């Protein structure tokens, strides 16, 4: 139990640092800065207290906002993601995920990929809509969501397979 807490805390700190020090200054192909910290929502324990999860996500987003001077955009996006995660989980894994012995181990690769892709899509849609905040620029928003989302997704898939716990 303590181990899981420590793991989450370490992920929190490391993801914030990786995000702001490496990926925020990546500027891949001009202006693509993938937001890899979304993988936090993929890694966070499934059977956790929902209120606490939302608080943690809010502070994760807020911390990244403070570093990147985009006040409260990341916070809203991550908060909403935390709130909507059960819905996305149910969509991807069916009612199975509510059972006590559910874990990612007995799901298919496609299911996990869909889960991750939906997390990234939701997060980026909210983030870029709020950042640009104009329906006149809907094409710009969609282009940014698509381009950045794709890179984020590729990196998240890499991260999830690189750092997947062996025992689980």
């Amino acid at each position, binding site marked *: 139990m303590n181990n899981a807490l420590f793991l989450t805390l370490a992920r929190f700190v490391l993801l914030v640092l990786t995000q702001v*020090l490496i990926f925020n200054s990546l500027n891949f192909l001009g202006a693509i800065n993938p937001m890899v910290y979304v993988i936090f929502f993929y890694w966070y324990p499934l059977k956790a207290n929902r209120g606490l999860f*939302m608080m943690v996500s809010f502070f994760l987003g807020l911390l990244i906002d403070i570093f990147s001077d*985009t006040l409260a955009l990341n916070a809203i996006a991550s908060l909403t993601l935390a709130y909507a995660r059960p819905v996305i989980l149910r969509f991807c894994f069916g009612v199975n995920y509510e059972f006590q012995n559910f874990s990612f181990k007995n799901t298919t690769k496609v299911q996990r990929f869909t889960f991750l892709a939906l997390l990234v899509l939701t997060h980026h849609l909210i983030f870029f809509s709020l*950042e640009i905040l104009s329906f006149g620029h809907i094409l710009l928003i969609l282009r940014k969501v698509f381009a950045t989302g794709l890179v984020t997704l590729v990196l998240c898939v890499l991260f999830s397979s690189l750092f997947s716990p062996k025992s689980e």
Partner: protein
Amino acid sequence: MQRIINFILRYRNAFLYGFLVLVSLVMTINSHSYHQSRFFNSSKWISGNVYGWSAHLSSYFGLRQENRKLVEENQRLRLALLNAPGDSIPALDPSLIQFQVTSARLIKNSIASPRNYLTTDKGEKQGVRQDMGVVTTGGILGLVENVAKNYATVQSVLNTKSNINAKIKNSQHFGSLIWNARDYTTVQLIDIPRLVSLVVGDTIVTGGMSSIFPENIPIGTIKKYELNPSRTFYNIEVALFNDMGNIRNVYLIGNRDLEEIRTLEERTSDE
């Protein structure tokens, strides 16, 4: 009462969500409508220090290139100094200097967002004040927006809130320099009247109408231009001299008379 409490308890997550969204929306709207947030920004203690360490480490990688840039600038300045007629160089009497220059290093850069902010490693202790102009060896970069003890944040020209007075070199027609958030190598100059004759490649410099920047600081060159929909003013695309993604050393320019000009302008607009 019991039922109300039960209701709140049952939907406590939704309430929590609503509350936190409200908090963050207020922060967002605050930072959109006025200046960037004064209490949470990257010049503050934790973020400033983390960026400071990181810049300290990574600064070694670009030393050669940075040195070359600075030497080239020195060469240019020496050339101008040596070839200037003797009596045009005023004695450096500190009471006569209008613009103060402080050097600083950029510890955080950003070009990908519609509202880009940069962070420098000098702050209040080193004499940095709000609304100082920020330039590099290449040209204009932005202006200081928030100041902490040892760090300051800079609103980049690549910011949709940025609005800087600029003109075409060797003429007195001035307009406003803005950014449409599309391309980080170009900014837009608007409100140049139709009667001005323009040539692609003309240099754009800062105008003297702003109390922040001295006149004639280079900005960029005209890339293309067209009349605006009402056919009275030009919309000019300006290619920036600065490579915005690759900047280390900057200069902060402070106008000694800023306070006086501001007070005077405020009093005039009040009347």
